[in-house]
């Protein structure tokens, strides 16, 4: 009970700069005491508070899979006005920081079994979807799910994250990968087009299917109509919301939308639930 606001100590084992603008970095964290990793039981879609002494805490989605049992990964975009994200980006491998969590609800992995899964991601909001894809594609899990389709887009080729993994997934024959960019570059041989348009083009079947969608608000807004057109019912479209948080456990009072706390009742909501919330313009 005394641990409520106390972060656990972790150290940075590895960092990967994910994009050309060099402001999106993946941190691979290991607990100073391995038993803490075992205690940190999470599911795809959850988040944790990352904590740098002197800079405070921020909620960040967990990007690694629950099956990655040695470490946790978080992909963080640095904002010039973001105190924690700036502090985090300045840390070197070997530095220590704190993790508190896991918090929030998660993607309905149980319900997703025996169904076709359509994953639509945009920009760097791809992190908890990446956790999910890693989980679904794991040898232990793959057979429990039907067709898996992944559509991922970024503004430009340089802004795509998890590049080497995207390539590995593209080489697999048990996942339909569609990677697109809003605007191509000279040496870009892949797809060019906005996520909602590519989604309509690809036209995944909604039969026995569930869609997970994460991206910037504008992408979410324009992705819902094509999904509905394809026949996905609002309760079969799952997304994740973000808000500023301080406690992560439904007490500090800032992340609510209507009576729902994003930290505790979310961050994962169905599109049906989302449409019933005030203040959400999707």
């Amino acid at each position, binding site marked *: 009970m005394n641990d*409520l606001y*106390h972060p656990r100590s972790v150290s940075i084992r590895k960092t990967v700069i994910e994009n050309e603008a060099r402001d999106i970095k993946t941190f691979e964290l290991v607990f100073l005491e391995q038993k803490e990793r075992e205690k940190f039981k999470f599911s795809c879609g959850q988040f944790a508070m990352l904590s740098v002494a002197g800079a405070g805490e921020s909620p960040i989605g967990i990007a690694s899979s629950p099956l990655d049992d040695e470490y946790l990964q978080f992909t963080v975009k640095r904002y010039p006005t973001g105190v924690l994200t700036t502090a985090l980006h300045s840390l070197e491998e070997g530095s220590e920081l704190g993790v508190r969590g896991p918090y929030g609800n998660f993607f309905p992995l149980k319900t997703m079994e025996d169904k076709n899964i359509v994953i639509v991601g945009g920009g760097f909001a791809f992190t908890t979807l990446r956790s999910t894809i890693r989980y679904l594609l794991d040898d232990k899990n793959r057979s429990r799910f039907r067709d898996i389709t992944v559509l991922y887009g970024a503004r430009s080729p340089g802004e795509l994250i998890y590049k080497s993994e995207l390539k590995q997934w593209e080489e697999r024959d048990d996942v339909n990968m569609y990677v697109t960019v809003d605007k191509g570059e000279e040496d870009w041989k892949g797809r060019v087009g906005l996520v909602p348009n590519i989604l309509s083009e690809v036209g995944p079947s909604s039969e026995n299917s569930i869609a997970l969608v994460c991206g910037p608000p504008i992408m979410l807004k324009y992705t819902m109509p094509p999904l509905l057109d394809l026949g996905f019912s609002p309760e079969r479209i799952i997304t994740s919301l973000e808000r500023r948080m301080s406690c992560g456990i439904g007490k500090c*009072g800032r992340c609510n939308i209507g009576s729902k706390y994003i930290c505790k009742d979310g961050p994962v909501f169905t599109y049906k639930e989302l449409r019933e919330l005030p203040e959400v313009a999707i």
Partner: protein
Amino acid sequence: MRKGDRLKEKIIQKEQIGKWLEKLSKDYEIWAPVKRNGLVLFHPVTSAKEIYFNFLNSKKTPKDLFFPQSEVLFSFPKEEVKKEVKTILQKPRIVFAIRPCDAKSLALLDQVFDSEDYQDPYYIERREGTLLVGLACTHPQQSCFCTSVGGGPFAKPHLDLLMADLGDGKYFVEALTERGEGLLEKDDSWQEPQKKDREKLAKIKEEAEEKVKSKLVTKGLEKKLDKIFDSSLWDRVHQRCLGCGICTYLCPTCHCFALLDEKDKARVERIRNWDSCMFPEFTVEASGHNPRISNRERMRQRVMHKFNYFVERYGETACVGCGRCIQSCPVNMDIREIIEEIRNE
């Protein structure tokens, strides 16, 4: 105590209170309303002489005895992080002469800080280690509206003891919990209440309730608020608001906070400070995006949280009608008028 037994009731003479408190202060730290520089606030006291019994209500609520305005939760470097939360209270406490409205507010805060899923150790230790001795309100103010939100000037819920000034040099003291009864240890000089004392009590209670003139209709308000999230009413009601946040700081049920770090050369402290939904920074994200962009959204949030969201979540209105937000607003905003406007919308 056998079931069905009435808890103790006593008549205590005004001049006996000093002796009573002296006895209690051996085992308890006693906090009571004290008037200093014209300001009534709860302070630790060692003698009844320090207590300002004729107060209307304290300027600030006693909530910061349980949820301090600023509190160090722990400090880094990390060997100190691992240190368990120290015992927060050195001694059990009594909040003496707390008003029934403020006692009710603590029961509402319990819902947040002592929820089923996450229990806040800082709050809970203080709460469990503190007894509440209420002082009934015989002089409700113009800004009071407790009777409209499920309370009353003589309301007993959430108190351990309730005292009422009978006006003739006597206090009618009623134990409401066994812990409260424990404070009324046998003192031969105290009397048992007589029929006339009970009649007097009933009379002053009725008079006090009548003095709460504001009658707000809060029935159905929650449902009404469900429907008017996008109403133009919000464009109007926030116009005068300066966004100073005083309403939230003085509100006994407001509990928003921020965890943040303060550092000097030697160490970093993680601090919990009160925060306010009336401040623009409250919801601004690292990217600069702010979902509550203007006073309009923030005012709506404050009203909705108290009269709709909290009701939906915990089944009760997060307002006890103490009127502090009305008394201290620099531009004379009045939550009662806002509610009236909502009802008429």
